[in-house]
């Protein structure tokens, strides 16, 4: 029910590679994406679009609310989530994924930063990353819109009402009344703003013809 997308900064993916990034011809198999927040948030959902990433691991940097001066801790909240069942094939390679707070190992509260570690063991793909990363925050409890009271009356109650005998059939009365209501609505919506015209009777409205008495 909460639709609060948090503004965050997504840093460019950093490749983790043995050897020099520039000279080594082998392509990296691990990327790390950091997402930082201006203030600590309670996460509801992390959603993204995959681009040929096989596995993802999510780590959170949490801040203890009671003692803000202490160092932030890194905890793993999702270990090796498989996005592509077979890394060499296309399945799951461009799908949309969501990670909810219920799926995480730790409660994602008071988070200041998220680290997404992407792995792609297959050498078939040229590069891989995650697109369109959105972080949703937990909303407040009373975020429900005001539902009018008559809304709950739309579905009829199951229990039979104790009606007195001798009442006219409510179905018939209801259908007649509803048709009468519809006819009145038709009448009301067909109002026209056209004004009545006056026939010009051979110039008799000419001002010179008014009497001077």
């Amino acid at each position, binding site marked *: 029910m909460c639709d609060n997308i948090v503004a965050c900064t997504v840093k460019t993916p950093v490749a983790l590679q043995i050897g020099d990034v520039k000279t080594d011809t082998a392509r990296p198999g691990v990327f790390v994406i950091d997402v930082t927040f201006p203030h600590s948030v309670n996460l509801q959902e992390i959603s993204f679009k995959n681009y040929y990433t096989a596995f993802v691991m999510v780590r959170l940097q949490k801040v203890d609310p009671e003692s803000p001066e202490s160092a932030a801790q890194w905890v793993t909240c999702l270990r090796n989530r498989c996005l592509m069942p077979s890394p060499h094939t296309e399945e799951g390679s461009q799908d949309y994924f969501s990670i909810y707070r219920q799926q995480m190992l730790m409660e994602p509260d008071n988070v200041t930063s998220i680290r997404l570690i992407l792995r792609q063991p297959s050498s078939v793909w040229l590069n891989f990353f995650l697109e369109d990363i959105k972080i949703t925050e937990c909303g407040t409890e009373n975020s429900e819109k005001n539902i*009018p009271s*008559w809304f709950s*009356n*739309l579905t*009829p*109650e199951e229990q039979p*009402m104790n*009606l*007195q005998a*001798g*009442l*006219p*059939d*409510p*179905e*018939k*009365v*209801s259908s*007649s*009344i*509803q*048709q*009468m*209501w519809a*006819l*009145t*609505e*038709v*009448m*009301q919506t*067909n*109002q*026209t703003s*056209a*004004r*009545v*015209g*006056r*026939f010009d*009777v051979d110039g008799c409205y000419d001002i010179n013809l008014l009497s001077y008495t």
Partner: protein
Amino acid sequence: MANSLQPGVGGATDSRSSKPDTESEFLTQVGAGAVLRGALLKLLEIRSEDPIGFLAEHFQNLAQSLENGDSGCAVEGGNKKQHQQALQEFEEQKQHSRALWHLTQAHHSQRSAFNNNVAVAFSLLSRDDRKRKPGLKGRVYTELLRRVCRDGGVAEPVSAPLIKKLRCQDHEAVPFDLFRHGVLACFVFADFVRKSRSLFETVSQSDRSLCRAVLGSLRDALETTGCSHPARYLEASAKLTPGRLAQAMDRAQTLASGTPSTLMSQEEFIEEASALIISRVKLVS
């Protein structure tokens, strides 16, 4: 039919050379194709609810107009002016009836067909043979509204308040929009009175307060949709479910159980119901 032609064909071909041999030649000579095509086009234009009745009347009118066309030129000299006046009144009456007939062909809920028929009726009534003042006069318009209500089964006293709101002065010119609005209002009102009559059948044996309660829930629903917000329609319809109406009637019956019961007459019921709908019609100015 082919068999009956056989003996004649071989023997007396000379005398029958003027008559066509095949069916298609016969039809083209008679001109039945054009007549039938015209009739079907008219039927499509009007989209009557009773197509057979419409076609019967159409052919009858056609026959009559052919007769009139022949006899029209027979009037010569004599008391020409008086005859012309009488003829003019007769023509007016006929125009009225024709316009009314056009309007009743399609029900007002079939919107495009109804609008079509209203346009045809308007052009029929606005025509003035003397070409002095083309346009629909207020007197003709008001008279037509009265007839629509009367033919729809609405009594004079019931329709009088509606006519009062919709009428135009005799000398005023009625534009098409106003004409359409007035005619539609009368047809809708006639339907409404019919419905309230059938509703009265259902509640006729009940107490006056129960009838009032039923009309009260209708008034309630109408007031809800007053501000024309779309969600209000859902709210109003929620008030008119069988469950809610049953509750309202039950409440009214319980309240009235102590006092002696009085029954409502049909006229009173219809009068109160019509007041609800007429109050929502804007006065024509």
